[in-house]
């Protein structure tokens, strides 16, 4: 996925800039990431449980020291260097965010770097949990999620996807410590999720940016003589189609399609305003112009896999936020009654609704524990708070 995103970033060239404020969320986030060194990323890898193989250790003896650490020790090292910057992170989180004066490649790199910083912060929360300070730990994870949303909401679809990785990452840590989340932190997290869900889903923004990108790619595909500029696999069909047409046909077709792009943006906004269960039918984005060639291009624009990936990501992230809130409800219930709820009907009714699955979340009692999940929707599969680590880690 990252490779795809990076390729897309290289292709993008039309996004540009406005002046850079001195004290903006953008500059604060950037400042926070400045101290990250290569060794910190190795520590982060160790904190995530990564083990360096013998060959790597033979070439990089300095890693042996890190390899000898327990993952928690690696977290402690990171904590010593980065724990004090939380206040600054919180300050930036309260400011509206906008990308400025960066190329698209730089934008993605910015998001990647900020993502690394936020992962470090998430692991500092792990240290706080281990040392018996659950309230600051949960607050830190909320700060990480707020930064993720702040940047993800305002950036391009590329940064949304890059930053979006922090959502399951942070929830995975939360999931490990659910039993330890005290009542006040349950309330704090629940309120944060409610606030988050009350804001617009920002699917409109992200898909509009995507459509804008695709329009640019379309113009390139139809005008660039080499026709090699669109190499992104999602648009292979579009490129093939463009290649099959003569120059005049392509010009006419492009004009016709351009005239329908604003309508497509409107459809995107309509889709975003509906409950998540309606998001998955991408056919809603397909328009009919009455001209078969134009319709074919519009269909290719609407039904590509990147659009699907963004919709799936947004729906999944929102579901995980809801699941986090519901887990907090369950933990609060457990503290209050010293038992798990018999069913979800014992909890706040508004919290048990699952818009993605068009029903309710599912609570399964397993021994003394439980499993909470969404049935998901179609290809999305079941959704849990639990994070499944990437292969190789």
């Amino acid at each position, binding site marked *: 996925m990252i490779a795809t995103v990076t390729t897309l970033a290289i292709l993008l060239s039309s996004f540009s800039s406005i002046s850079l404020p001195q004290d903006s969320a953008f500059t604060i986030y950037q400042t926070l990431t400045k101290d990250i060194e290569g060794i910190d990323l190795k520590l982060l890898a160790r904190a995530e*449980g990564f083990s360096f193989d013998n060959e790597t250790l033979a070439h990089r003896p300095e890693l042996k020291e890190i390899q000898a650490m327990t993952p928690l020790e690696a977290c402690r090292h990171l904590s010593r260097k980065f724990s004090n910057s939380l206040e600054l992170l919180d300050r930036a989180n309260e400011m509206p965010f906008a990308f400025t004066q960066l190329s698209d490649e730089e934008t993605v790199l910015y998001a990647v770097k900020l993502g690394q910083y936020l992962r470090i912060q998430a692991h500092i929360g792990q240290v706080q949990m281990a040392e018996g300070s659950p309230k600051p730990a949960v607050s830190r994870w909320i700060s990480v999620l707020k930064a993720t949303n702040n940047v993800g909401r305002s950036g391009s679809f590329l940064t949304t996807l890059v930053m979006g990785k922090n959502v399951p990452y942070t929830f995975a840590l939360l999931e490990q410590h659910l039993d330890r989340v005290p009542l006040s932190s349950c309330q704090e997290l629940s309120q944060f999720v409610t606030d988050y869900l009350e804001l617009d889903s920002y699917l409109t923004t992200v898909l509009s940016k995507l459509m804008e990108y695709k329009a640019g790619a379309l113009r390139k595909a139809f005008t660039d003589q080499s026709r090699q500029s669109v190499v992104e696999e999602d648009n292979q069909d579009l490129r093939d189609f463009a290649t099959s047409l003569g120059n005049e046909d392509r010009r006419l077709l492009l004009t016709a399609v351009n005239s329908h792009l604003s309508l497509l943006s409107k459809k995107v906004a309509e889709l975003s305003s509906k409950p998540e269960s309606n998001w998955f039918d991408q056919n809603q984005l397909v328009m009919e112009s009455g001209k078969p060639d134009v319709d074919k291009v519009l269909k290719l624009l609407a039904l590509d896999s990147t659009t699907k990936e963004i919709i799936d990501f947004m729906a999944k992230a929102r579901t995980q936020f809801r699941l986090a809130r519901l887990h907090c409800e369950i933990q609060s219930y457990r503290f209050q*009654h010293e038992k798990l709820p018999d069913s979800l009907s014992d909890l706040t009714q508004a919290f048990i609704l699952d818009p993605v699955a068009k029903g309710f979340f599912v609570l399964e009692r397993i021994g003394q524990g439980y499993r909470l999940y969404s049935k998901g929707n179609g290809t999305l599969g079941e959704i849990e708070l639990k994070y499944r680590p990437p292969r190789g880690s």
Partner: protein
Amino acid sequence: MKSILWAFALLNTFGQGVKPLYKEIGIIPTGNNGYEEYLAAADICRSNELRNLRVRAENSRFVSADEDGNPIELSAEQKRINGLTVFEAKQEIVRKFGRVVPLIELGNSKDVRQPREVISSDTLLPELSTFRSISAVMSACVDVAYATGNPKEAGRILQNQLVFSDNIGRTGPVISLLVSFANTALALSTIERHLGRMSLPEIRAVTAALESIQEREPNIKSAIRQEYLYSNNDLWEMLKDPVSYFLPEDDDIATRKVIEQINQLDIAGKNRLGQEVAFLRKKSEESMLNVLDQPLLHWLEIEEPSATADLASRLNELTQPVFSTSYTAAARVNIQLRILRSHMAILDYRWEFGKLPPDLSVLDRNLFIDPLNTEFIYLMNGQSYRLYSKGHKKTGEIEVRYKRSQANVNREVNP
């Protein structure tokens, strides 16, 4: 600080118009015996309000009808408590009785010993029943500390609860030991309930408590010594008036025959009999204590000395303390505490590595030695695990887990 704690404890007692325990049992506080702080804490806990709140805190309710359906009038307070959640009841316990915790902590920091100079079979030990309430209050404090995000405080309380429970068993005869076991069981059930959420400070605190307890001589040794001492105190009184000593509780043919034979003796004969019985007791005391120096498995195979036909032997059998159940309980608690220590090592590993140990080889294996078998059994089950001892035919499997009987869950209490 110390005097403030005492003042609070005494004010509480006077406020309720109840005689403080130290006066009731007739001791003069010395200030250097932790048992005195325990008594002050017990004074605070001798409260009907606490008794009522504990009903709800233990997930029960007062019922408004008896088994035959006859209505029972609940007091306004009982009705109010019925309306609380379990957690609210615990919060109220903490608010009103949580001040016992610093008292126990202060007591634990001192030498703790039996404050009475002499204990005999007639000695009442009224504080023992309230010691259980102190432990219940401490458990509530732990639960509330976790729920409110103060695990370090929970760890400090658990550490003191374990030491307090153990100290009780060092201060008196076997009854004190049994109260100590009951309190330890309560502490263990509290810890078991929170095992999954324990962070490193609590792990360190509980480990420190366990190490200090395990360094000591087993409490059962001092309990046995004191039990023999107290029963020897009774011996001469019994010889003077055997009828009052035995009857009517022990009214059977064998006892009546012994009484008859004693009554036939003159003073010199009774003195001789007393010396013979004291000698037999000394021998059986040595024999019982000797077992405690042997591996734990021997504790469970102990046999009480049996009587021969002569009067001294039969009298000794009738009057000497019986310990076999105490030995079984002591062995079980000993194993439970060892298992708890092993849990702490597993949890510490889980924090450091973010996963459970794959097997015991990555941990200090000495911690997992099972004195009744070879090694504790460690079974991983996904993200959780079970750790237990296969135990012994007298104990069955042993684990830290407190097995709450189904009847205790949501049971109802007749006021």
